[in-house]
C-alpha cells in the first residue's frame, strides 16, 4: 500500500528555474493538498483540490501553480523559483466524507527543495 507518494524527494534549483513536484495517491481520495513546512512555522497550505479538474488557493499560494488532471495526481509547479521558496513540501490527501473523526489527511514523506 503506497499511500501518498511524492517525487522527487530532493531537488536543488537555481533562482529563476522552473520545476514540477508530483504527488500521487492510491487511496481514491477526493481531496488533495500541498503544504510547505518551514522551521518554526508549522505547515502552511499552498493550494488544494476538492476533485479532479478543480483547484483552490490556500494560505500561501503566490509563486505556485497547481493542476489536478487526474483524481490520483496533484501537481505543484514553480514557474520561476526564488530563494524564499526553499522549503520542504508535503502533499496530503483525504476523503471528503463528513465523518471527520475517521478521515484524517494522509501525508507523503515530502520533497526537500533548495533554491540557490
Amino acid at each position, binding site marked *: 500500500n503506497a499511500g*501518498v507518494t511524492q517525487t522527487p524527494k530532493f531537488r536543488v534549483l537555481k533562482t529563476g528555474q522552473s520545476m514540477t513536484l508530483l504527488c500521487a495517491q492510491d487511496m481514491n481520495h477526493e481531496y488533495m493538498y500541498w503544504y510547505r513546512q518551514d522551521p518554526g512555522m508549522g505547515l502552511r497550505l499552498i493550494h488544494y483540490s*476538492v476533485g479532479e479538474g478543480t483547484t483552490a488557493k490556500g494560505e500561501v499560494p503566490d509563486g505556485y501553480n497547481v493542476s489536478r488532471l487526474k483524481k490520483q495526481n496533484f501537481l505543484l509547479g514553480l514557474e520561476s523559483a526564488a530563494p524564499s521558496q526553499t522549503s520542504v513540501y508535503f502533499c496530503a490527501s483525504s476523503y471528503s466524507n463528513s465523518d471527520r473523526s475517521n*478521515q484524517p*489527511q494522509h501525508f507523503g514523506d*515530502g520533497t526537500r527543495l533548495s533554491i540557490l
Partner: protein
Amino acid sequence: QQQVKQSPQSLIVQKGGISIINCAYENTAFDYFPWYQQFPGKGPALLIAIRPDVSEKKEGRFTISFNKSAKQFSLHIMDSQPGDSATYFCAAYASGSARQLTFGSGTQLTVLP
C-alpha cells in the same frame, strides 16, 4: 496570521515522565482538532483527534484535553518513551472548509533514556 498558537517550541523530558504540549486557537468556527506526529524525514501522521463537544479523549498513553470556553487544547503523553521523540503539531479545521488544516508551529519533543 497564526490562528493556532502552539507552545512550547521544544521540550525535553526524562523517560517515564509526562510531556505536555499546549495549543490555543482563535477561530471559533474550528470544530475538529487533530494532533500529528512527525519523525525526521517523514510526513506528519495523525496521532489523535478530538471534537469540541468532548472535554477529553484518551488513546493509550496519549490524551487530549479540550477547553472550549478558553479555546485551548493540550496533548499529554504519559510515561514518555525515547521512541516518542518527534515533532508534534496541533491542528484545526472548520466545517465546510474542504477540510483545510491550520497547523500550530510545532513542538520538538526529546525524551531522554
